[in-house]
C-alpha cells in the first residue's frame, strides 16, 4: 500500500461517508418508517379480524416473502415503466424496501401484540376505551417494547440491503466505490472501504439499540 493509495482512500472515505449520509441513511429511515407503519396496520388487520383485509394481507406477506428483493426492484424500476408507471431509483427502492420491511416486521409486531396479556385489553374496555384506543394507548406501546430487539435486527439488515438498490442505478455507497475504483483500479481497497462504511453505520445502530433498550427498561 503506497502513499498514493492512502491519499486516495482518505479522499474517497469522505465521499463514501457523505453518500451514506445523503442516500443510504435517508433511504433506510424512509423505508423503515413506512415499513413499520405498514407492519403495524397489517398486524392490527389480522388481530382485529377485519374480514376481507385479513385475506389480502396474507397474500401480500406471502408474495413479498417468497420473491427476492432484487426481482421486486427490477419489476418496479424496469418493469412498471413499460405500462406507463415511472419511478426514479430512490423512489423505487423506497417502495420495494418499505413493502419488504412491512411484510417481515408484521409478523414480529403481531407476535409482540399477542404477547401483551389479553386482560389488559379487557381492562381497557372496562375503562371505556375502544379497541383502537386500547391499541394506541396500552397494547401497541408495550408490544413495540417487546418487538424492539427483532425490529433493530431488521433496521440493521435494511442498512445493508440498501446496497441492492445499486442494481436499479441508485448511486449509493457501493456504486460510488465502484465508480471511484473504475478510475483507479483499486477495487480491493475501495470495496474494503465500502464495507467499512457499512460497518460504521451498523455499529452506531447497534450501540443505539443497546442504549435505547436500557432506557426502555427503566420505564417499566
Amino acid at each position, binding site marked *: 500500500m503506497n502513499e498514493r493509495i492512502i491519499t486516495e482512500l482518505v479522499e474517497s472515505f469522505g465521499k463514501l461517508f457523505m453518500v451514506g449520509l445523503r442516500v443510504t441513511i435517508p433511504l433506510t429511515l424512509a423505508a423503515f418508517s413506512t415499513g413499520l407503519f405498514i407492519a403495524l396496520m397489517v398486524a392490527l388487520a389480522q388481530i382485529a379480524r377485519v374480514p376481507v383485509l385479513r385475506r389480502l394481507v396474507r397474500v401480500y406477506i406471502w408474495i413479498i416473502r417468497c420473491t427476492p428483493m432484487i426481482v421486486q426492484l427490477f419489476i418496479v424500476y424496469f418493469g412498471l415503466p413499460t405500462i406507463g408507471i415511472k419511478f426514479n431509483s430512490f423512489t423505487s427502492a423506497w417502495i420495494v424496501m418499505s413493502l419488504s420491511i412491512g411484510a417481515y416486521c408484521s409478523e414480529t409486531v403481531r407476535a409482540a401484540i399477542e404477547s401483551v396479556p389479553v386482560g*389488559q385489553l*379487557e*381492562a381497557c*374496555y*372496562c375503562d371505556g376505551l375502544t379497541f383502537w384506543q386500547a391499541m394506541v394507548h396500552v397494547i401497541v406501546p408495550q408490544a413495540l417494547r417487546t418487538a424492539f430487539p427483532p425490529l433493530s435486527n431488521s433496521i440493521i439488515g435494511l442498512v445493508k440491503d440498501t446496497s441492492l438498490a445499486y442494481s436499479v442505478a441508485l448511486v449509493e455507497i457501493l456504486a460510488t466505490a465502484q465508480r471511484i475504483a473504475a478510475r483507479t483500479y483499486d477495487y480491493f481497497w475501495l470495496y474494503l472501504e465500502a464495507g467499512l462504511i457499512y460497518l460504521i453505520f451498523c455499529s452506531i445502530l447497534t450501540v443505539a439499540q443497546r442504549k435505547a433498550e436500557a432506557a426502555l427498561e427503566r420505564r417499566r
Partner: protein
Amino acid sequence: MLRLQNVYKKFGDTMVLNNVSLDVNQGDVVAILGPSGSGKTTLLRCAGYLTKADSGTLTISDKQYDMKKISSKDLREYRRRVGFVFQNFNLYGNKTALGNVTLGLRVSQKMPKEEAEEIGKTLLERVGLGDRMDFYPSKLSGGQQQRVAIARALATNPEVVFFDEPTSALDPELTGEVLTVIKQLADEGRTMIVVTHEMEFARKVATRVVFMEEGEIVEENTAREFFENPQKERTKEFIHKSTTWASMTEEEQAALEAGADALPDVIRHDADF
C-alpha cells in the same frame, strides 16, 4: 339498582349459566360463592359485558340493556356506571399507578389532565398508595397492584363495582390489604358484587350471599342467615367443608386423608362427592 334477569350462557354444549337472575340493591355487598366451574365468574363477566351472554337483560337504575347485544354508545355509557376488578389485576404495564387510574378518564371521557390526576391522586391515597403514584406495575407487589386496580375501577365513581376473585392471585400475606380496602368501600356504602373464595370475608363483609353451582343459583340469603342457617343441603355441605377442616381434630383430618369410609359420622356426608 342492578338487576340481572334470565341470563343464559353456553360454552359449546356446556350450559354455564342456566336462567340466572340476580337483584342487587343500593349499598348491597353481594358475595357470590360456589365451587370452581359453577359459573360465578362467567356471570360477573357477562354483567361486565366482557363475555356476551346468549340471552338475558340487565337493568341498572332506570336503564335496561340486552345482555346479548348492546350498541357501542350504550356500552360506553354503561361502563362509566360500573367498575371491574380482575383476578390478575390487569394493570397497564406501560403506565404508572397514576396513569393506570387516569387513562379511562382522559381517553374515554376526554377529561383534562389536571382534573383526571386530581381524581387519581385522591383515589390512590384512599387505597393507601399515595407514595406509589409514579411506580410502574412491575415495581409493585401483587397487593399493591390490586389496590391500584381498585382505584382504577373507582375512577368514574361507578354505581356498582364488580370484583372477580380479587385475592385469588395473591400471596396469603397480601390478601389482607386488599380485603381491607374492599371492606372500607363496603363501609362507605358502595354497591359491590364480589366473586370470592374467601369465606371469612363473605361472612364479615357481605350483606348478601349468593351460592352458585352448575350454572344456577342454589341459595340466596342475607350473609348472616346464609352462614348461620343455610337452607339447602348442598349449601350446608359447602360451608362445612370450606370452613371446618382447620377446626377438625388430627384424627378426623387423618381419616379424611385415609378416605371417606373411615370418616367419623360428623363429617361423613361432606365427603361423598
